[in-house]
Structure formats: C-alpha cells, structure tokens
C-alpha cells in the first residue's frame, strides 16, 4: 500500500543510475565478488520461486488444460474460459461475492469510523477498549463460524429466539438466499471492524490538533468537526481501508466454507468466487477449470485495483487545492 500512495521518490533513482556503470564495468565479476551477499538473500528468492512464482505460472498453464490432478494433462485451449463465461454458477458466485462485499464493507467501515472517533476521545479504559475491539480479528475463524452457526440457527438460534420473544417472525438466516448473505456479512463485520477502527485511530492521531482548535474557535459543532475536518483529513486512510476490504471481500472463503460447507449452502446462495474455485479444483478435481476461475478473479481484482489507483492518483493533487475544492 505505502508503495502505491507515496509519489515516486526522486532520490531513489539517483543511487541506481550511479550504480549502473559500476556494475557494467565489473559484469559477472561484480556479481561473483558479492556472492556471500547473494547467498544470504537467496533463501527468500529460492522459496519464492518454488512456492510463489512457480505455482502462479503453472496455474496459467493449467487454465489452458484439462487435468484431474493425477492423470495426463491435456491441452484444452481456451475451452475452460469459454465455459467460464457461460457458466451460470460462476456468475452466481461473482454476484454473491459482490453482494456480500457490499453488505459487509459499508456498515463495517462506518462502524469502524465511529468506534475510532469514540476511542480517540478522552475516555476511561481506552487501552482496554482498543484491545477488546481488536480481539475478534485474531480469533480463530473456524471456531467463530461454529458460534455464528449456532447464533443464527433457523430453529434453535439465539437471534431467532430473541425475535420470537419480541413477537417478530423468525428469519431463516441459514436457509434463505438473503439470510445466508447477511449472516456471512455479519461475520465479516464482526471480524474486521476492530481492525479498521485501529487503522482509523492511527489516522485520527496524525491529524494536527490545531485544526480542531481552529474549528472550535470558529464555533463548529462536534458533528461539523467530524464531517468537515476529520473525514476529509482521513480520506487517504479511508481509501486504504476500502482497498483492503475489497481485497478481503473478493477473496472471501473461510467464512462461507466453514459456515455452509463446500457446496455454498442452499441454492449456492453463499457460494463465493474463491469457494467455487476451491470446490471445482479440490472436490471435483477439475484443476484446469479451478485455475481458470482463479485467473478470472485476478482480472476482476485488477479492474478494482485500476479504479482504486485512479482514485489515489487524483488524491495526489488534492493538497494543492483548497479544502473546499477537494471535497467537491
């Protein structure tokens, strides 16, 4: 992230241009003379080649083949991708992923902002609250899925018992299409609100206090300070959390898998893109198709990365404008 936000450092270019002629002059001898250093950094690159780069490249190859993970690998041209664009189950998974992403990200970031704002005030037990809000993020998701499964259970769950006690009709949380998505979204919200709140808190602490003092002197109310000072100053931080939430949302897997199993629940209402990929590759042993799904996800993620990048590069000019223009 920090790589993307910071403008290209001018200084960084200088040492490299200076280094080029020297390396050229020494050539291979230059490399060899530094061999202990190369050996020292080699473990990371060797591991990355074997467990990072090779699988990535191999999955591109696989997406053009038909392979059950065991027998011979048959070249299949573009047929996996042609099947993919016509596969209603895949598009259902794409739609599910985006609905769950939207249902979770919007309330989560809003809640996180409010919590961060409150934690930033001078209240008692601040440290305790900060830890408490962050705890869900480090809790085992598998254990939590079981808890959520019991809480949202259709006929035996806490939520429905509470609804019945209030004389409201119980909701089929884990068997209706929307109920499943809401339950997964609630799990995501529960897990990541604290994490985002901590990031917002860091952002809040970096806002100079004289801005607040000036606003107060001008007679601004707390709400005005929040919307006119805090939010605009936090904009890069908010964009950062939107991006991380998008990455997390597009690769949503554990929550639906543990809550609903490999099939994605009733009518595949909880089938996300990554769960579908896992389902095809590791339960149907169709590795060619699984790889094609993975690369389709890559394309989708790239589209979002480009949108985010556009938003960020626009931000780079913002400090030159006046505050009012930046908001419009």
């Amino acid at each position, binding site marked *: 992230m920090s790589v993307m936000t910071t403008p290209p450092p001018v200084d960084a270019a200088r040492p490299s241009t200076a280094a080029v002629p020297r390396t050229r002059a020494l050539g291979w*001898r230059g490399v*060899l*003379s530094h*061999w202990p250093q190369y*050996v020292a950094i080699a473990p990371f690159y060797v591991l990355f080649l074997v467990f990072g780069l090779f699988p990535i490249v191999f999955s591109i190859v696989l997406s053009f083949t*038909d392979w*059950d*993970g*065991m*027998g011979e690998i048959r070249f299949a041209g573009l047929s996996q991708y042609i*099947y993919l664009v016509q596969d209603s189950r895949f598009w259902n998974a794409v739609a599910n992923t985006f609905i769950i992403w939207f249902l979770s990200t919007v309330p989560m970031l809003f809640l996180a902002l409010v919590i961060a704002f409150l934690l930033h005030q001078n209240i008692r037990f601040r440290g305790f609250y900060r830890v408490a809000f962050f705890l869900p993020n480090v809790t085992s998701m598998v254990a939590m899925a*079981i808890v959520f*499964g*019991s809480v949202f*259970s*259709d*006929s*035996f769950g806490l939520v429905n018992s509470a609804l019945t006690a209030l004389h409201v009709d119980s909701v*089929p949380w*884990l*068997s*209706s*299409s929307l109920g499943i998505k809401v339950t997964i979204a609630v799990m995501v919200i529960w897990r990541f609100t604290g994490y985002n709140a901590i990031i917002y808190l860091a952002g809040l602490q970096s806002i100079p206090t004289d801005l607040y003092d000036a606003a107060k002197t001008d007679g601004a109310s707390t709400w005005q300070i929040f919307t006119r000072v805090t939010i605009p100053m936090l904009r890069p931080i908010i964009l950062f959390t939107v991006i991380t939430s998008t990455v997390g949302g597009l690769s949503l897997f554990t929550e639906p898998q543990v*809550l*609903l*199993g490999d*099939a994605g*629940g*009733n*009518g*595949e209402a909880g089938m996300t893109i990554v769960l579908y990929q896992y389902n095809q590759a*590791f*339960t*149907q*042993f*169709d590795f060619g*198709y699984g790889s094609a799904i993975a690369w389709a996800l890559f394309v989708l993620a790239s589209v979002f990365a480009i949108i985010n990048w556009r938003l960020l590069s626009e931000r780079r000019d913002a400090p030159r404008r006046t505050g009012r223009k930046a908001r419009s």
Partner: protein
Amino acid sequence: MHPPTRRHVLRGLGLAGLAAGGLAACGSSPTISDDPDELVMWYWNRSASPKLLEQAAKNVPGTDRHVRADVIGTTFDTKLRTSLAGGAYIPDITYINSNNALYFRNEHQFLDMNDLGAAQHADDYYEWKWKLGITPEERFCFFPLDIGPTGFYYRQDVFEKAGLPTEPDEVSAAVSTWKEWIALGAELRKATGSALVNTAQSIYEQFLNASPERYLDAEDTPLYTAEGSAVREAWDTAVAAIDAHITAGIPDARGTDQNAAWSSGKTAGHVNASWWSQIIQESAPDSAGLWRLADQPVRPGNSGGSFAAIPHTCNDPEAAFAFIRWINTPDHQAEAYNDVQLFPSAPASYESGTMKYAGDFFGDQDPLAFFSHAAEQVPESFISTWESVVSGSFTLEITNVETAGKDPDRAWADAIAAAEKALRKRGVQR
C-alpha cells in the same frame, strides 16, 4: 569485497551440486521410506485398529517386513493424488474411502490384487462389497475394509407419544414400502409436530444407496434420463416426502442444527449406516437409549465404508498384500470393530461371536445383529467414476424444492441440464 578466488567459485559450485543432488535423490525414489524392510501405509484416524497396527509395526506375519502407519489428516485425497501425480513420496499401502470410484480414471496407479492371489479370499467378504473394489477394466484394486449397512433409526419415545408402532418388528412391518414410510411420517407430524428426517436429500441418497442401479453404467452412459430410472424414483420419493411435509429442511452442512433437532426429538428419525449412531451419541448423548432400529423400506443399502489399495510404486507388493489380508481376516475385522467400531465386511466376523457392542444407545436392541442382517441384503451396484460430478446437481435441486419451494418439475429439468453440462465439460458426453 574480496575478488573471487578459484576456491570460492569451486565451493559455490560444490554447494549447488549438493543441492541438485538432493533434489535428484527426491525424484528418483518414489516411495517414502529408506528402510528396505519398512512398508509405509497411509490411513486416517479411526480407520484401522491401533492394536493391530502396533503388531504390524513389529512384523507383518508371514513376511520379513514391518509397517509404518502414518495418519494423514483431512484432505486425504488431495494428498494422495498429489504424491501419485508427482511420482514421489508415495505410500506402499494406502486406505481409500468410499469414494474409491474417483480413482477409476487412474486405476493403473494401483496394482491389480488378483495378480497377488486376492481371488482366493473373495468368499470371506460380502459379494457386493468385493465388487465395489473392481474397476471398469475388471481389475481388483480396492480391498474391502469396513462397510456401512443402513437402517431406519427412530426415536421410540416420540413414536410412542404419537401413538405409532414402537417395537422394531412392528415398525419394520409398518414401513415395508417408501409410501408407507411417508404415511407414517405424516401421522407423526400430525400427532407430535416432529419431522421424520432432517432432509429430503437424505431420503434421496439412501434410496439410491439401496438401489442396484445408480447414475451411470460402466460405459459412462447416464441412466437417469431413462423412464423409471432409479435416480428418478429416488427423486420422486424425496419429492413425495417434501409434499407430505415430513422433512425438517435442515441441510447436512448445518450439523449443529441437525443434532439439536435429533436430541430434542423435533426430528424423530434418520436413515443411515451403522456408524451414524456414534455421531449422534457424541453430539446428543441425552437421546441415547431412546433410539431403535427398524428395517428401512424395500431393502437396506450401503453408506460409506472404505478400501485398501497398493500403489504401483510399492516396494514389495506381496508383503503389502499379505498385510492387507492379515489386517482384514474376519477375526481381525471383529477386533477392529471392538477397537474403533469399524463394521466388518466379512460376515464371519459377526458369526464368530467375538464382536461386542458397548453402550445402551439402542436400549435392549442388538445393533450388531441388525446391521449384520442388513449387510446380507445390500444389492450389488456399480458406482461410476463420474458420479461425484453429477450427483451434486440433483442434491442441490432437491434441497431447492425442499427449502425454497421450487417447482419439482423445473428443479428436475435444471438438475438434468446441470448434470449433462458437467459431463460434457469433463468430456464424458459428446
């Protein structure tokens, strides 16, 4: 910053050579163990008797080998397939679950145990189980371990409250057809509000598990499109059960809910194999003693049960086969039942009288006699390697009918279309 000397370079090359040598060593030896007297076996928790494995760790009787048994955790198939595909770190003996048909496509990865003299032992095992181990090329690659004969579990106390027959014999007599079974469920629903089973899917699946015909034949021809196919009958039975409102609509993925339904009596029955009683005993111990077993309608089926296989890279196939046979003699299968409750695939295990059922899950009823009797009636069937590709479409759609109120005819048409599409994608159909 020293200039490189020849010694430096040589040392570097030596290191690279060592690394390459290490990698080559991995590639050249496909088996796991370097000990020539050791056979490595892969299995999962509770799929073999620890006591027998302890003996085999010292020596496999009749051979000069011993067995090192490695528990492979979850994703067993992925791990086994990966090592077979990579041609390295392959066990000498492997257990395979009831999804052994998945390996039919790659059956030559495993040795034909008929070449090792397996045929002479065939009479010791249920014939239908033995035949499940035979591949489409008529090779015998999968040796019978345990089986899962099925029955109709029911809550005696709930049946009594509903004024239904309560004794196993009476219940069995009252549900000799699925139609009668559904009618009984409807009565139960009316009298107590309890469902008979948790899912329509379980009815659909157990109907097929008790059917001689399944999804595809040995020539990969789909059978489900034919008029009056077994799949269609299973489907119609499940739909009739949904219409009669005897299912609770709690899918398998939600185990916690299912167990709550069973232990509270909101669901008063289940059709499944012998191993299921342990699951419910562990998750809903309060209901132990209230359950009884009746014959399921028409005939019992088989749900689950595993196999042993010898990968083609095995160090010593004779010894590996000697081990598989030794751990599966009727006597040893009886011991395995007493140890880890694996239901024997050898009828003589039960007849020997050494098998002991511990617990009071079924009151005074003897589950061993029940399931042994059921095992004798399981029909022979062929499970196609493509079954796992198509079956999901049908179970998904029957659940849609059950929980989303989808029109059964449309659901059936969608299931067929999805199955055909999946088969075409895998190159099975034109």
